């Protein structure tokens, strides 16, 4: 088991638990960032996006883990980062509440080193597989039209790739590129069979992680990347 090149943000106010998790993950090659409170976590996330967030629910002062989950739901760039709750609260109400607010999984303290690492690894691989499944949807080149800053751009089927967040709209028929100012960016040429595969990996109306679009010209890729960078 290893975590090479995988980055974590540990949001945990208890120093003892935080330093133990850090040691365990770093021993296996992970890069670990730490926050003792929600506010610090938000500040870190403005500069750096981890591969996974491990979040405690209870804090002595300020916002709690549920507040963070609300914040995550309102912050598009964060929605693609899995958040695993790690809490001593083992009651059904806490677990259901956290999962309903979008937590990827819920682990109960106390920390058992081997079990903790195995579960984190498993959750990470599951999330990665979901993203891989989504990428498969776009393997074949397709063409579509995008309205970008009022200008109609036709995507051709050249071998260029654009990576950006996507959302499945409520009709289930359209994949919409985000950010919002790319509205009108509807990709219509995805056949139902492929759309079905994507739907099984994410919920309707939810934003997904980076997705590879094949068939976008280099110049369009550069333009969109520039806008997405500014948006992030």
């Amino acid at each position, binding site marked *: 088991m290893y975590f090479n090149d995988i980055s974590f943000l540990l949001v945990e106010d208890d*120093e*003892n*638990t935080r*330093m*133990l998790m850090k*040691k365990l993950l770093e021993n296996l090659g992970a890069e670990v960032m730490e926050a003792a409170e929600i506010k610090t976590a938000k500040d870190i996330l403005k500069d750096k996006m981890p591969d996974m967030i491990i979040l405690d629910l*209870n804090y002595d002062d300020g916002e709690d883990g549920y507040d963070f989950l609300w914040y995550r739901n309102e912050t598009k760039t964060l929605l693609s980062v899995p958040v695993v709750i790690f809490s001593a609260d083992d009651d059904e109400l806490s677990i259901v509440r956290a999962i309903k607010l979008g937590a990827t999984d819920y682990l109960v303290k*106390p*920390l*058992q080193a081997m079990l903790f690492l195995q579960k984190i690894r498993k959750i990470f691989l599951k999330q990665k597989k979901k993203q891989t499944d989504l990428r498969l949807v776009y393997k074949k080149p397709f063409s579509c039209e995008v309205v970008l800053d009022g200008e109609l751009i036709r995507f051709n089927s050249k071998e260029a790739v654009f990576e950006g967040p996507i959302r499945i709209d409520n009709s289930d028929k359209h994949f919409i590129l985000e950010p919002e100012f790319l509205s009108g960016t509807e990709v219509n040429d995805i056949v139902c069979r492929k759309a079905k595969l994507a739907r099984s990996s994410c919920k309707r109306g939810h934003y997904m992680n980076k997705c590879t679009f094949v068939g976008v010209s280099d110049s369009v890729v550069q333009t969109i990347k520039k806008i997405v960078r500014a948006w992030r």
Partner: protein
Amino acid sequence: MGKKIVKISAELSELMPTFMKNVKNDFKSLDQAFEEKDIVGAQKITHRLKGNAAPYGFIELGDSAKKMNDFLREESFDQAKEEWEVIKDYFDCIEIEYINEELK
């Protein structure tokens, strides 16, 4: 009460000074909370100890913190205090022995 040996993985030796410092601070705060009948304060500390003591090898402390936390939630303050006196005495007598064992 004689010395109680607590066997702890040598991998944790570098973290132990900070851990012990934090636990001592928690003990001090818990003492105060029980003295002032501050149930909320005591709940917070026992909740924390419930989560962090066992992973470092202090199983008894973790179990006891869970018991205290449950008592406090049920508002059985006296029972929680009784438990606190027992674990406090126990903790005064512990001696750490590092062993070459992987963290479980």
